């Protein structure tokens, strides 16, 4: 059987990679993609635990996470498009209108 | 017994408030309507007090027509009104003087008419409230409320230095009433209630030492109001700067609140302290009589002169109260009413001249008697009443006070009697400089005599002056029992047969 530690480890790794992606990459689209990675990591962990505890709750949660991910991606892109039309660039550095 | 469904005392106290509301709703522009409304309300109020007179039975000495409603249960403060002979007379005086004052300010006041009459009615409410309240807290509330309208009356419609005078008046009285409040609270702690009748019934349950302190607190509060000599400097300023109607009420009623306070609270509730401090107050009263008379000799402003004469007259009242004999005390109460009538009229007299010449300096006038004979007659009657000419009201009061004081100490009577001589001095000198002599300035030539309205304001006062002078029996009968009751508490030795 698959040891639970492995599953959680894998999920966590993907999560970390996603997080690094978000922090490192300046390109907005790539950041969004890293975001998706994050969520996938979480799903893996959820699925693993679901199986480990032999209850369907894990996968139900994962399902909901996916729904959230979908909506987040949609809104993300809408913003990106709007932003792109406005600023002609994806570079997050330009994005500093909110300077304090 | 009630009018329009409202118990009579409450009606008396709050009817002017109804007047205020009506006037508030009248548009500011329609001055005639406002003036009319004000006069109607004060007139009806006076009518109501006459109605109260019919309900009042002079035989019993204790409180009548008592109205009792719980007010603040937590501290057992009640909305408690009652009337006995003393407060009946003072209420009658208040409503009469307010009616006359309102009538007299028909031409006198031109600017901000609405507020003027609103304050006047508020003043009347609070004054009558003071005289009818039996619950000490309620008494204190009305006592404070009186200050507010008077402050504005002086502050807005006054003379040049009106702000100084108004503030001085307000702070002085406030200082006094704060001390009084302390006294009331101490009494409350001793008697567990604010109800005056209960406190009096309970007798002197307060230890003598504490009584001394409470008496001192009350003394401060009332002495400033009377005013007694060291605390009197607010009076001339307040009078000089107040508008005519204001000073009529200030002299006619406000000064009586102090003396009323002494008689209603200090004497019955603190008998031992009253007996112990009586000589001190008598000396202060004598000083007031002589000092007031002397200072008024030197005044150049008519109102200031009359103000200082009030200090002297009120000195007589305090003397009458603190000699602790029934005759003197009754004389003192009657003298309160007389002083209200004569000084009120004198201020109206000055007001008439002020309206015509806009000055109160005696040097500005002279020889008016030829131009204004009726005015001269009224002024003469009031001057004679003020210096206590027999046949007029002043004499009865002074005679009873002096005859009451004599058994206690002939020296006191002698000093007080000099007050009469000095009184004749400064009043006649005033009358002579204003009315006799030659017509000094051309402006005086064109002075016209009293109009019918002005005469109407004087008529009731002149009639009362003669009535009390010749037949004071009804007035004295009313105050006979209550005063005797109070004196019996304070000075029982007076009534016992010689052992």
């Amino acid at each position, binding site marked *: 059987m698959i040891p639970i530690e492995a599953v959680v480890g*894998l999920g966590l790794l993907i999560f970390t990679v996603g997080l690094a*992606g978000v922090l490192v990459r300046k390109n907005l689209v790539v950041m969004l993609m*890293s975001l998706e990675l994050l969520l996938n990591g979480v799903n893996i962990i959820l699925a*693993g635990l679901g199986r480990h505890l032999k*209850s369907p709750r894990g996968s139900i949660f994962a399902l909901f996470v996916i729904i959230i991910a979908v909506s987040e991606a949609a809104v993300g*892109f809408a913003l990106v498009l709007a932003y792109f039309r406005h600023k002609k660039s994806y570079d997050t550095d330009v994005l500093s209108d909110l300077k304090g | 017994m009630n009018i329009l469904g409202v118990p009579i005392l409450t009606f008396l106290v709050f009817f002017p408030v109804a007047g205020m509301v009506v006037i508030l709703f009248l548009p500011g522009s329609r001055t005639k309507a406002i003036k009319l409304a004000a006069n109607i309300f004060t007139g009806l109020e006076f009518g109501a007090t006459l109605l109260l007179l019919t309900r009042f039975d002079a035989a019993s000495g204790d409180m009548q027509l008592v109205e009792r409603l719980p007010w603040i249960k937590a501290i057992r403060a009640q909305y408690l009104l009652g009337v006995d002979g003393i407060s009946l007379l003072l209420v009658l005086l208040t409503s009469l003087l307010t009616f006359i004052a309102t009538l007299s300010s028909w031409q006198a006041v031109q600017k901000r008419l609405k507020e003027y009459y609103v304050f006047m009615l508020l003043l009347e409410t609070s004054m009558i409230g003071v005289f009818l309240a039996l619950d000490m807290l309620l008494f204190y509330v009305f006592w404070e409320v009186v200050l507010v309208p008077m402050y504005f009356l002086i502050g807005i419609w006054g003379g040049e230095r009106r702000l100084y005078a108004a503030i001085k008046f307000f702070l002085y009285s406030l200082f006094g009433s704060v001390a009084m409040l302390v006294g009331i609270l101490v009494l409350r702690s001793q008697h567990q209630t604010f109800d005056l009748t209960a406190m009096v019934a309970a007798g002197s349950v307060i230890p003598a030492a504490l009584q001394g302190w409470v008496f001192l607190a009350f003394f401060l509060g009332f002495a400033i109001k009377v005013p007694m000599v060291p605390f009197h400097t607010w009076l001339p300023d307040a009078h000089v700067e107040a508008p005519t109607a204001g000073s009529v009420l200030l002299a006619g009623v406000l000064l009586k609140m102090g003396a009323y306070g002494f008689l209603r609270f200090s004497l019955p509730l603190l008998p031992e302290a009253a007996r112990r401090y009586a000589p001190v107050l008598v000396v202060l009263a004598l000083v007031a009589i002589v000092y007031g008379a002397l200072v008024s000799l030197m005044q150049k402003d008519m109102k200031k002169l009359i103000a200082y004469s009030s200090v002297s007259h009120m000195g007589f009242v305090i003397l009458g109260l603190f000699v602790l004999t029934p005759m003197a005390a009754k004389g003192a109460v009657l003298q309160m009413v007389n002083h209200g009538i004569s000084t009120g009229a004198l201020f109206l007299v000055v007001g008439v001249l002020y309206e015509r010449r806009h000055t109160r300096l005696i040097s500005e006038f002279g020889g008016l008697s030829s131009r204004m004979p009726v005015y001269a007659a009224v002024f003469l009657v009031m001057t004679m009443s003020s210096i206590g000419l027999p046949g007029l009201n002043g004499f009865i009061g002074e005679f009873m006070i002096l005859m009451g004081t004599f058994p206690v100490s002939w020296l006191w009577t002698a000093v007080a009697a000099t007050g009469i001589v000095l009184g004749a001095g400064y009043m006649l000198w005033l009358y002579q400089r204003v009315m006799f002599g030659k017509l000094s300035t051309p402006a005086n030539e064109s002075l016209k005599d009293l109009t019918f309205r002005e005469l109407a304001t004087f008529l009731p006062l002149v009639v009362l002056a003669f009535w009390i002078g010749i037949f004071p029996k009804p007035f004295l009968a009313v105050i006979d029992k209550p005063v005797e009751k109070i004196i019996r508490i304070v000075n029982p030795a007076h009534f016992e047969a010689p052992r």
Partner: protein
Amino acid sequence: MITLAVFALFGVLALAAAVLVIVQRNVMHSVLYLAFTVLATAGVFFTLQAEYLGAIQILVYGGGIVVLYIFVIIIVNLKEIVPERRKLIPKLFLVAVPVLLGAEVVTLVLRTGFPVAAACDEGTRFKEMAEMLLASYMAPFELASVLLLAVLIGAIIVARRKHIDDPD
């Protein structure tokens, strides 16, 4: 034993793809690797006997989101390559932080360990999941549908090309 092997395979694939997604210069390549990662995780789901989830993953994630990315990139015809001006040290620092975070979580998990098999064996079959989904999780289920509708409208409005006569 085989499932373990399959699990390991898919796991490594997913991880590699993930790393490549964030490393790639060209966005198009990143998208492709993202698709690859998604499919790998679907495989993992299958090994964990969460078949329904895996199917959903492939359908929704793979079909939906990845395709969406592709469209967006094509529409926006993202030509210029955003120069990564940042120097290496800050980059390393930036990578170190998530790694640090990951390490901490691991130590935390290890310390607490996992609860022994749950007392209630509700079974992971698809039937039990469906029943539970539509019983105790009915509210979130409905809310999810509402959420999706809201996002649908929101995305359209935000992304729309502004016309002059538009009110806002």
